[in-house]
Structures are given as C-alpha cells and as structure tokens.
C-alpha cells in the first residue's frame, strides 16, 4: 500500500522532483497549482486567529492536529497515548472557496490519522487514510471537530471539553479532555521558524489538558487519567533542502512548568528552537543559542535518551524513553514515545524523532 | 497415294534432351493400303511410339504431312491444322483402333463395359460386344474387372474393344510386350486373324523380328539413313 500511495499522491499532485518525495510532513516546494492559486507560506509577522485556526487551512500544503498524553492507569502504571490527524494538500484552495462537489470524488487533499498507545513496554499503532472534501475525513473550527472514519475529536460542551474516540484493530480509546489555559503561540506570535533562512510554520499548543477515560487493549479495559498536550501546526514547507529530520520534545515538569523544544538536523549542525512556559507565566520563545539538545546515546537508530538544557532557566534535563520499541510503523515511520524527565527537574513528556534512516 | 489407307510424307520430329535436340524422325515417309500390315522396328527411342502417335493425331510432327482415310494433315497448312484435333478425334473415335502394351482398359469398368464403351464411342452396336469377347475366348470373363484377369486376357479384351469399333486402321504399340511368349503368340494370332478377316490396315510396332516378319511390310526406324 505504502509505495503505491506515495506514487499515486505524487502522480496526482504532479510532483516529480525527487527531493519532494520526502514525505507527508516533509519538504515540499511552494508552488502554484494549475489555476494559479499558490500555496501560502507562513512568515514572520503572520498572526494566529481563534477559533478559525483550530480549523483547516486548505491553502497550506500540510497541517496537523496533534495530541500526546501522559496518563496513568488506576494501578498507577504510566500509559502514553497519541492521536494525530494530518492533512496533506495536493491542490491549494483559498480558505473561503467552495469545496469541490463530493460526487466527483475530488482528490485535492489526503488525510491521515495516527493513533498509538504505549503501555507496559508495548506500542500499539493504527493508521487511517482518506481523501478530503467528500466528508470521509475533515476538520472544523467551531465547534471543534476533527474526524476520519469513526475516529473523531469533537468539542463536547462549549470548547472547554472535548471527546476523543479511536477504534483501531483490536484496541481503542475513548477520552474526555478538559482544556485549561489559553493557546500558547510558539516562536514569533505563532510563527515558528524552522531554519535560519526563515522557513517555518504557524504553531500553537494547548499545553494543559486534563484527561480521563478508558483505553481498551484487547479484552483489557483500563481507566486512565493524566495530562495531555495538543499541537496545531500548519505550513507549506517545513524542512528546507539539507535538513534530515527533527527531534521534538514536549515536557510537563513536576514544577508545573512546560517546555517545548525541537531541533532540525542539518548536514552541518542543527536548527534549534523552543518555548519555555512557566507555570502561570508568559511563554518565552527560546532561540538556538538558549537551547542545548543532544542525544546521550551513540550509534545508529533512534536515540532513546537525550540531554536538554536551557541555562537561562536553570534547566538541565535528561530525557529518556522507557524500554520498548515506539516506532509508528505507518506509511512514514517515525518514533513517538512517552518520556520521563530527570536531572534538574523531574517530569513526563513526549518525544518525536524523525528522519533516522527508515 | 490417293486411295491409300494411310500415307506420310517428310515427317520430322525432334525432342530436346537436356539442351541437346534429339531427332527421332528424319524426313520419314510411308504408305499403307487397306488390308496391309506394316511392322515398325528399331531400338528403344528410335521413334516407334512417336510415329504411331503422329499417325493417329495424338502428337504433331514438326514438319511433313499425313493422310488418313482421305483426311489430310499438313504442317504447311496452319489453317487446316486448326480443325485438325476434331478431325483426328473423329478418326480415332470411329476408324483408328489403338492398342498399347498395357492399360488399354478402364480399371473401374468390367471387360464387357470397356468394350461397350469403346463400341459406343465409335457409334457401333453394343449388342455385338459380348460376341467379341467370346470370339477372343474370354466371354466367360465379361463381367470381371481388369485387375481380376491375367495380362493376356486384358490384351485380348483390348483387341475385342478395337474390333468392336470396326476400325479401318489398327495401330498397335508392342501389344504383347508384357506377355509371356505363349500368350503373346496366341494374342498375335488372333490379331492377325481378325485383321485379315476384316481387311483393315495394321501398323505394329515391335521389338520382335519374328513378329515383324509376319507383317506384309517392314520399316526399321533404327536403320533409316540419318542425313
């Protein structure tokens, strides 16, 4: 399925340059479509707007709704959980334009949903695909709804409470999420640079979600509670040529502070950025010179342990994945695991690693 | 010459063997009166069969003229030759009986039917046919087929066919060539006897000098002067 899907997307999108085959959330040129409508590329000065930005951005090539959660079972065992829905546009469309008719089975955008549960050294992963604009998959801002098949995230009452339902092959979860706090805009008021040359994305997060619900693994049903982190990000070009992948961290420190940090690996060094969200304080964008991100393990494959340091805020952390294989083995494999934090602070969080040669 | 049963003047015939033309007949002339018999002798390839074929119109000479029963065929008269085939056909049908060494009978017809066919083509009464077979001593074989009788019996049947047409001229090409001596003798005996009785002309091509000597005249093609 995998290769065929890729080829098909490429063929339909009219992309033929080899570097554009980087993948779903990878590098892609900013190009106009046949009708002259261009893909929009975020830049410094772009601002967020709510609630619209919870909804889709059809004139951007790629975006996602991304939830990670560090939960605990009634027995106190840690359980990591992920739900992501991607949108990959093939043809750009202005936000206010009428979508094409469903009965023409349009293929202007493809959607992909990922769900994973990491528990007891086991990693459960599911992937769903759909085309947009026919109703099979989609998203709306008000009330918030993001769905593909029978997987859906929807606002339950107002926008303070959400419900997330996923039923994969042999396992499922059904969660309620209470949203606390305002959206955190990363980078320059939401424009998050991804290279020194100014490529970047629009990026905000809800960093304090209170979650409870049930996770069913086979015939085992677990009551879970914990906290979650919800990302919204969109762009038309994330990686620039020469960038090999990224390492991303979202950490809930026991102090109540939060840290988001990522680095984009380049052939000579890396581009680093992050956001320090102090408990009850204003978010602070971190520049490359304020951040140290380095793997603690050597060798091939995904580094399981990392050192993160933000000297300005007295942070020197060791971040490590629990034992187990946490690769999401879908169309575009990557690492997505819960992590435990030690060092100057203790805590939990999530780590995403991409571009390690798979 | 007028009144002759058959005459030939200045007959020439060449065949090509490979690239070399081979002359078999060189300015040959002959004449036959009714009741007469003429023996043609000569080694193989000397032209005996060719001459017989020319004398009954089955082959054309390269030059010369032939007269049979008042009909004249002259190579110098191309106009007349146009109708020659029909005239020859009529002659063979009614006047000229031809006997070959073998295979004178239609294999799918009984001896009697063969004789009847020949008589009918000649316009003769089919009633006599059985009589002819009787006269040649093979009456009881009338309803047998050629492959059911001996070679001598087949040649007798061939003679019956010839006589049933009441011919004026008989051309016989080695008629006993494939028979044993005794049978050959008796067949030839019958041929001469009937020829004499009916007063028709006979030209007999043969290797056999004894046989040749029984004819009135003798023409040796092998000893003709070659110019």
């Amino acid at each position, binding site marked *: 399925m995998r290769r065929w899907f890729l080829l098909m997307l490429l063929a339909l999108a009219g992309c033929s340059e080899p570097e554009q085959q980087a993948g779903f959330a990878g590098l892609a040129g900013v190009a106009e479509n046949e009708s002259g409508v261009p893909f929009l590329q975020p830049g410094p000065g772009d601002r967020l707007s709510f609630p619209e930005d919870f909804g889709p951005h059809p004139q951007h090539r790629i975006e996602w709704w991304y939830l990670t959660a560090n939960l605990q079972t009634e027995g106190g065992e840690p359980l990591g959980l992920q739900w992501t829905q991607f949108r990959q546009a093939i043809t750009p469309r202005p936000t206010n334009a009428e979508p094409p008719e*469903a009965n023409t*089975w349009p293929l202007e955008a493809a959607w992909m949903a990922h769900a994973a549960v990491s528990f007891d050294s086991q990693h459960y992963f599911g992937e769903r695909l*759909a085309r947009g604009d026919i109703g099979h998959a989609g998203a709306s801002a008000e009330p918030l709804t993001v769905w593909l*098949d029978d997987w859906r995230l929807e606002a339950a009452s107002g926008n303070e409470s959400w419900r997330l339902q996923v039923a994969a092959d042999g396992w499922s979860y059904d969660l309620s999420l209470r949203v606390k706090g305002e959206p955190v805009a990363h980078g320059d008021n939401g424009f998050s640079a991804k290279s020194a040359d100014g490529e970047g994305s629009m990026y905000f997060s809800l960093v304090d979600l209170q979650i409870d619900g049930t996770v069913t693994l086979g015939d085992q049903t677990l009551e879970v509670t914990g906290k979650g982190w919800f990302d919204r990000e969109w762009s038309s070009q994330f990686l620039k040529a020469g960038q090999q992948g990224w390492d991303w961290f979202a950490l809930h420190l026991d102090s109540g502070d939060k840290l988001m940090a990522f680095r984009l690996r380049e052939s000579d060094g890396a581009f680093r950025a992050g956001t320090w969200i102090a408990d009850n304080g204003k978010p602070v964008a971190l520049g490359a010179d304020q951040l140290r991100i380095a793997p603690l393990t050597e060798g091939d494959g995904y580094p399981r342990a990392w050192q993160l340091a933000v000297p300005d805020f007295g942070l020197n952390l060791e971040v490590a994945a629990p034992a187990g294989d946490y690769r999401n083995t879908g169309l575009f494999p990557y690492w997505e695991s819960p992590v435990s934090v030690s060092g100057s602070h203790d805590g939990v969080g999530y780590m995403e690693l991409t571009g390690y040669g798979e | 010459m007028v009144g002759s049963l058959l005459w030939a003047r200045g007959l020439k015939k060449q065949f090509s063997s490979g690239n070399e033309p081979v002359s078999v007949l060189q300015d040959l002339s002959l004449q036959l009166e009714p009741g007469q018999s003429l023996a043609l002798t000569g080694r193989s390839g000397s032209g005996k069969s060719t001459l017989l*074929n020319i004398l009954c119109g089955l082959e054309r000479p390269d030059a010369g003229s032939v007269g049979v029963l008042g009909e004249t065929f002259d190579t110098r008269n191309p106009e007349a030759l146009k109708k020659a085939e029909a005239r020859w056909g009529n002659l063979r049908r009614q006047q000229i009986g031809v006997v070959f060494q073998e295979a004178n009978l239609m294999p799918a*017809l009984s001896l009697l039917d063969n004789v009847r066919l020949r008589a*009918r083509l000649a316009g003769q009464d089919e009633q006599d046919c059985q009589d002819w077979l009787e006269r040649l001593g093979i009456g009881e074989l009338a309803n047998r087929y050629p*492959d059911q009788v001996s070679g001598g019996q087949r040649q007798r049947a061939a003679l019956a066919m010839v006589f049933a047409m009441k011919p004026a001229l008989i051309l016989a090409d080695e008629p006993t060539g494939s028979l044993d001596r005794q049978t050959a003798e008796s067949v030839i005996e019958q041929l001469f006897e009937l020829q004499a009785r009916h007063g028709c002309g006979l030209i007999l091509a043969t290797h056999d000098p004894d046989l040749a000597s029984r004819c009135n005249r003798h023409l040796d093609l092998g000893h003709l002067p070659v110019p």
Partner: protein
Amino acid sequence: MTLLAALFSHYRRHPLQLLALAAMIVLATMLWTGVHHLTSQARASLEQSESAVAERQQVRRTDGKQVTVEDFVELRRGGLCVMPWLEVASPETGRVVGVDPLAAGCFGSTDQDDEPWRGELDGRPFVDISEAAELARGKTGELSLLVSDSDSAGVLPAGYRLAPFRVGPDTGELGDSFLLNLDALGVLVLLITALLVRSVYLLGLAQRRDSFALLHRFGVGPGRINRLLVAEILLLALVCIVPGIWFGRWLATGLGGGFGRALEGLFDQPLYAGQDGGWLVPLAIMLAVVLVACLADLLRPMARRLFGNGRRYGGFPVLVLVFGVALSIWAPGLAWLFVAVAIVFVAAGTLAPILISRLADGRARADSNPLARWRHRELSVLARRLALPLVALQFAMAMVLAVQALVTTFESTFDRWLGQRLEADFYIEIPETVDPGPALEWLSEQPELAASGMWHRVARGEATLVKTSGETGPAVDVFALGPVGPLVTGWQLFESTDEPWRALQQGKGMMVNEQLARRQDVTVGQTLTVTLGGEELNFPVLAIYPDYGRPAGEILLNVSVLPPEFVRGFQSLSVSPGDLSMEAVTHQLKALWQVEELTVRDNRAIEDLASAIFDQTFLLTRAMTALTLILAAVALLMMGWVFFSTRAWYFRLLMVWGLSRRQASAQLIRLAVSLSSIIALLALPLGVWLTWVLVHRINPLAFGWSLPMAVYPGFWLELGVLSLLIGLSIALLMSRQLKSPKSAPVNANAPAGGER
C-alpha cells in the same frame, strides 16, 4: 547412408510432399495453438477478474436507490470498512474501474493477493476514483461499495443490506458459453487437420511401399522399419510443431488486441495481455495428434481384433452413428456430450466415403450409357481414394455451417436483446430531483407523438418475492413501465396469457424474466406475491420474457400499480419522437423540469457501436473456420492432383478413343463437381446436427439456458456454390495434366492408379 536416411530419401525425391506434410502440421499447430491460447487467456482473465472480487460482498441500499458518495461516507464514519468501486464503461476507453486507494487501507490484509486492486484490470492499472468520476461525466458509471471480509459478517446500519459483488455481472455466462463453443471448434479443427496430415502421410507411405519391400528383401525386419517410421515422423513432428506453436502464439497476440476489446465490449470480459500460456500442453497434444494420425495403421491390427474388420461394410458405422446421435440427445453431462460429438464425427467420416462410393456404384449399375457408367464408377474410386481429404472437407464444411448458424444466432439474439433495450430512438434520464409528472402529461398531449412516435417511462426499483410459505424470497429488480405501447409489445415472449400487454396496460398482472421463471419455477397464470414499497401485492404472471442470460430476477409492471411508498431508483424516458423533433422534446423537458442539462442517449448510435463490436468478436471465429475450410480444400486439391497424376493415363485413354481434350475435361469437371457437391450435401446434416448440439445441448448443459436455434438455408446455398468452386478448381487443375502425353502406367496396381 543410414537406414533412416534411406527411408527419408523418398522425401528428397518428393520434396513437395514433405513440404505439404510439414505445412499441414505447422498450420494445424498454429490454428489450434492460436485458438487454445486465446481461449485459455480469456478464461484466465475471467477467473482473475472474478477472483479480484471473489467472495466479495457489497453494500446496497434497502430502498433500492443507487449508493452514492454520501452512503460511502456515512458507512465509513459509522466504522464500517467499505471501499468505493466506480465502474465506467465507454467505447473509447473500454471499462475503467476507479477505486479509492486511501479508503482501501482498512481492507488491511498483509497478503497482496487479497487486495487485487493493487494489480491491473484489463491490462491497465485501476485508476483513482476521481479520474473515473471525471470519465463518468455524461456516461453510465456505476458505483458499488465493496465491504471488507471482516465487516461482511457484521451488522449493517439500518437502510443497508449486503449483496454479492461480481465484476462481470450480466453477460458473463454468454462469454463463457462463447469460449466453450470456441473450444469445441478448436477440437474440430484439430480433428480435421489430423485427417489432412494423415492423408498426406499415407500417400507418401503408399509410394514408399516398394522401397519397404526392397528393404525387407535386404533383410530389414518390418519391426525395424516401423520403428524407423515412428522415429521419422517424431522428428518431423517436433521440427514442425515448435514453429507452429510460435506462429499460433503470434497469431493469438496479433488477434488478441481486437479479440480482447471485443470480448470485453460484448461480454464484459476483459482479456489480460501478456499471460504466458505453456508450451508443453500444445506440444504434447499436437505430438499425440500427429502420431496417432500418421501411425494409426500400426494400431489397426489391435483395433481389428477388437471390432472385427468392418472397413468395407457400412453396417457397423451406421450403428455407431445412431448410437452417437442418441447419446447426443440423452447425454447427461458435458463430457458425454463431447464423446457423442466425437462418435458422430468418426462414424459420419467413416460412412461418407462408403456412402458416396455405394451411391455411385448403384447409379453405375442403373445407367446403361457406358460413358456415364464409367463416370459413376470413377467417382466411386475417387471417393474411396480421396476419403481422408474428403472427410476433412466435409468436417470443415459442417463446422463452417455450425459456426455460421451459431454466430448468426448469437448475433440475432444479441440484436434482439439490444433491440429490446434500445427500441426507442432516444433515451432520456429523468433527473432525480424533478417530478416527472408534468413532462409525462406534456408527452401524452403531443399529437405528433401519438400519431407517429412512441414513448414510455421506466421506473426502476427493487422488490422482494414472498414465497408461498410466507417466507421472504429473493430480491428482484422492478421495471415499472407506462404507458405500455409498441416499444414493448413487439417483444418476443416465451410464454404468455392471451393479450398479455393489454392486461399489463390495465395493471392486471406482471411479467417475469426467464431467469426468475427458471429459478423460482414460475409459470404463466400463477399468482406471485411481492413486497413492494412496504406493501404486499399479488399479481398474476402474464408472460415470461427472454433475458438472454441476465442472471438477476426481474419483474415488469405497469407504473400505475406502484404503491406510493415505492422508492423509484432510477427513472428514464424512452422516446421515438416520430415527426416531432427531438430538440423540441428535450427543450420542453428542460423547461418543464427547470434543468440546464439532460442526459439524452442516441440509441441508434449505441446499437451501431454494439454491432460493430460484435462483428469484431466473431471475426476470429469466422477467420478460423474459413482458414480450416481453405486448408481442407487445398488438401483435397493436392491429394486430387496426386491421385489424378496416377489416373491421368485413363483420361488420356478417352482422348485416344476419340474424345477431344475439351470433352475429356468436361468429364473431369462433372466428376470433380459431383464429388465436391456430394460432400457438401453430406456436410449439411452433420453441420445442422452440430449446430443443434452447440446451441441446444452444450449451452443448456453448461449454463442452464439456451438460445433459440435457427438454420440459414441462404448460407447453405453459399456453401454449395463454394463446393462447386472447389470442384471446378480441382477439375481445372487436373485437366492441365491432360495436355502432356502420358506413358502408360507400368503395372496396374492400386497406388499406380489402376484401382477399380
């Protein structure tokens, strides 16, 4: 010089004979391999395309409406794994199937073979459904929703039901039957060419009899000679069969394109390109055929011990023939039927020369004219001497006859089927959103239409039969029709009550199709109960109409009897406008319905296209039979030539006896033409019988339905003329041999032409 070389030296002296033998084997191999290759390819394609969706289920709406993208979305969002399958048929592109590869993920098998839409269909990859939808604009595209295996057992949301899914739905059996018939003809081709090979081989053998006798005298035993002969023919067969197979495959590839398009167009049966049929099967079969054909004599003593020597007696073959025909009538299965065909052909082939020979002998006895008697007797000899090529010609003619009748029957059935569906000149889809009422009123008020035109409306939907026991029976397709007029009243009906159309017009009953009648044992006059739009209705069955192989059950009703709750799936108008212009009709309909576009189909154009596709399909069959016929005729010509060269002396004897060459030639012509005409006459009953077997026996046994059988005397006449031409060409060819003087045959044995 080895012994084998000594034996083979015969062919050095008769290179033409060797060439003929080789050509026969090559041609026979080519013909049969070509046909075999095509049919096995087509069959493999059928199986493959069926296995592509083997055992698959689809989801349909219980209200009978066509499923749409909204249904797909509703089912998917309800958690059901369904995949859209949009099939578009167009004359330019053939069949195109669009699928949604993104949606196929949930079929989630790790085994590639279970997800056939990854492969190819019709030699083309499946396309994305958006592309198919684009193609489907203004054409007939049909959306199906395939359901994954794991979900096909589960519970469906209300309003949906499961139904089996097939790729080539309606005419698959017609295609199968066509292939089976092609197979049968392939076997006949094999039989005919075997006869021809045998005839040439036997000729050579007869001519070599003297050499064998000589070898025997030199101390070579007959066993050794036979072994050498086997080796010789094995060598020759191998040398000829291999290029023959190659040519056959080349032929199949060459014809494959057109054949594939045609099969697909006619039977929805795509032909996959590039399938590699084995070499081994054709090689083994052809080798066996050649060996048996040439070396049957070695087996003969055995056969004679078994059956006694019945060669010259007609009694035994007659018994066999009667047995074969009886078996063909009462054969319980296909295998027995094929045995019966083989028996009848063998018996007929054995009898034909004997019959001609007897007949000629009888006439010879009755005729007092010795020349006529000679001719009859000569015919008798000819019939026996040329028995093998004659029988081959007889078989070929019988086959041509049967194929013509079969093709014409298929064609006229197809025409009627088309005609039944395309009776009106134009076909207009009624848009789903409109009320057809005003348009119907307007149409019925047009005086031109009433005077010179015809029209009716068809509403399609679904109903469920109620069995006499009260249980729910199978679902059937509903065709509701009104007004009932000349567009339908000309239909051919299998069985009907008095004035069935009038009763239908009055809403006093319904008609059912052949399949429904057959499967549910429905008879005319019986009352059927159907659930229709939530109501149970009882209708007497007025008539059974032919469906030409459509497997779905159908009922035909007057639109006026439909209950108001009946969900009209798809509605259309069929209009022959007569003096009214079609522009006026469509203009008015657009105005009444307030739509900008109407889907209007020109049925005549569709009919022309379908006929063209049909002709293309049978091009192959016709070409094959024509080629066989030519082969048989040429073989007869050749054998006649060889035989006559041994017989020419006797024809020349006629000229010695005073017949002109023209007269002798005339005798020859009469002879040859009599022979070829008699064989054509004898081919006639065999051909009609074969037609009957193909149409009335093989089809019902294999598929449970049959086509009407018809005979075509006009074509018999054509075949008669052809046989005359064959006879004439034989005579003309032979009379050339009368020109040159012949020496008398040395001895009067049979091979030298002295046979009586």
